[in-house]
């Protein structure tokens, strides 16, 4: 679709705190994700996966290093090179482990808000939200508040919202941790499907080794350092 990389990070380093309490959460983390590529990021707790993902997501700028999205430099160290909020709204979709949804909006409205923030009219946003929920198999729950939805239904609604503006980048941090393995796998497959259909670059932080066959590329993170782990893929 386009010849730019969906995501490129160049030696991202993140230092939390200073002096005695200094923690280097991420060291020169570099990664390249092509459009349509689905990447898994593995690693023990505390290894810096979330730090990396939030840096790519433009919500937790790195101490140094650069982030390119769609070939465009958006973060140069801690400095924004564009309006990050607007950029996220247009080009990125996020899914986390839990509490992804705004509790005072029902499932449909949670999707709709993302569309309306991006300039869609109420009517159009409403129709598109229903389509997405339908696509994710939770259209019958459209009117329910998050507290009335099961973990799986919540995650599907969250995925629907993440996909709402047809983002070129989808970032997911342990999205299946709250789901049973069957549901978890379904959500992962969904990412792959969307990535391939929309030519989006997808990074999924996960602990779930059973679903790794879905991913195109697998990275491993340890002590803030990222490296490919292609060899560890179980036989597909």
């Amino acid at each position, binding site marked *: 679709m386009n010849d730019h990389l969906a995501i490129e990070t160049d030696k991202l380093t993140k230092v939390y705190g200073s002096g005695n309490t200094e923690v280097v959460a991420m060291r020169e983390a570099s990664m390249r994700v092509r459009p349509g590529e689905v990447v898994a990021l593995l690693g023990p707790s505390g290894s810096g996966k979330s730090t990396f993902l939030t840096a790519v997501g433009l919500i937790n700028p790195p101490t140094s290093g650069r982030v390119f999205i769609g070939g465009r430099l958006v973060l140069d160290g801690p400095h924004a090179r564009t309006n990050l909020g607007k950029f996220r709204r247009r080009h990125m979709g996020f899914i986390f482990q839990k509490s992804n949804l705004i509790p005072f909006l029902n499932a449909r*409205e949670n999707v709709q808000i993302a569309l309306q923030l991006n300039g869609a009219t109420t009517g159009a946003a409403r129709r598109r939200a229903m389509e997405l929920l339908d696509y994710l198999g939770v259209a019958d729950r459209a009117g329910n508040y998050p507290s009335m939805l099961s973990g799986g239904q919540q995650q599907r609604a969250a995925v629907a919202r993440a996909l709402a503006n047809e983002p070129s980048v989808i970032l997911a941090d342990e999205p299946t941790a709250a789901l049973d393995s069957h549901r978890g796998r379904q959500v992962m497959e969904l990412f792959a499907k969307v990535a391939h259909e929309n030519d989006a670059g997808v990074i999924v932080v996960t602990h779930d080794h059973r679903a790794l066959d879905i991913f195109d590329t697998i990275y491993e993170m340890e002590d803030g350092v990222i490296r490919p782990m292609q060899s560890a893929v179980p036989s597909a």
Partner: protein
Amino acid sequence: MNLAAKDIRHNLGRFALTTIGVGMLLMIVMGMGGIYRGIIEDATLLIDHIGADMWVVQRDTRGPLAEVSRVPSNLVHRVAAVPGVATSREFVYHTIQREYEGKPIRIAVLGLSWPTDKGDWLPLVAGRALRQNHFEMIADRTLRLELGEDIKLGRETYTIVGLTANMISSAGDGIAFVATSDAMAIQFDAAGEAVRLEREARRSRGERYEVGRQQPVLLEQAYKSSAEIPPIAPPQMSAVLVTVAPGHDAEQVAATIAAWGDVTVHTRADQRELLLEGNVEKVRRQIGLFRILLTVIAAIIMALILYTLTLDKLHSIALLKLIGAPSTVIVGMILQQALVLGVLGYGIGYLVGQRIFPQFPRRVILTQDDLMQLAAIVLAISVLSSLLGIWKAMRISPNEAIA
């Protein structure tokens, strides 16, 4: 999609209770202002209605509505003789407290100067003006007397022939209107024994004087009722009410009367002013300070509730920022909630006040100006009280949506 409304709907119970609470507070703020207006209105009602251009009162007093004023009864005729005076009538006014049907009742008794004044100027809500110069009474509704009811005051019984609304003294007592002579009878009513003792004393004073001993018939005279004894002055009145003839200068007339050594003249405007600055000024300050306190408390409560509503939403706000909501959306949400709280609170305060204030023993008058002023204040405190929540919301990072 209106986020403010969605959040309110989701927290409806809490929001409703808060709104009602704020509404009650605002109602009290409104009521306080209304009570103040009521006091002013009541204090000046009589002056405005009685239709006198000036009041001739005891020298150096502020008049019968503010303090005790005594003028001789022949003053009416002296005043009437002044060039430019159209009418001159007696004003008798005093407050009594009696037992009525087992309960204490305070009545401000006002004498109508029969036959020139039968009470036609009174705002009657039932019944009629006086038709005879004795034993008829027009009472204010607040005295809780019924039309046609008889009330015994002193040695006489008076029949209620008319009822007025909102005619009360500056102390808040309902006014009863009777003919002047009746008003005096009520005022100077003394027990039979007291009258006998007074006459006896008069006689024995007479016996001590040469003239009394030489002319025993004088002593006999002294034993009669005081009204029958020419040298004893008839009872005094409270004031004389004057209207100025058209074409004459009120200032001129006032100056003429004021030159007499025994009286002071107040124009209607003077009378108003005196009454307001004397009786009402302190009440005004007292109520004013109270209103300010209540307004501040309402603002603090609103700020607190908006702040906690925002705290509860911090995760949602971080999430909104994460999906790219601009600050205006988030500020707008909090500000709208503040305004909804303020506007609904004001509305509730107004509606509840409308139903409750009429039950108050004294009048609560909500004027358009006061209501507009309070509305502006409520809008201002709504905005101010949202600032704390907005400040908190602006500081939260989208990163916290993930935590």
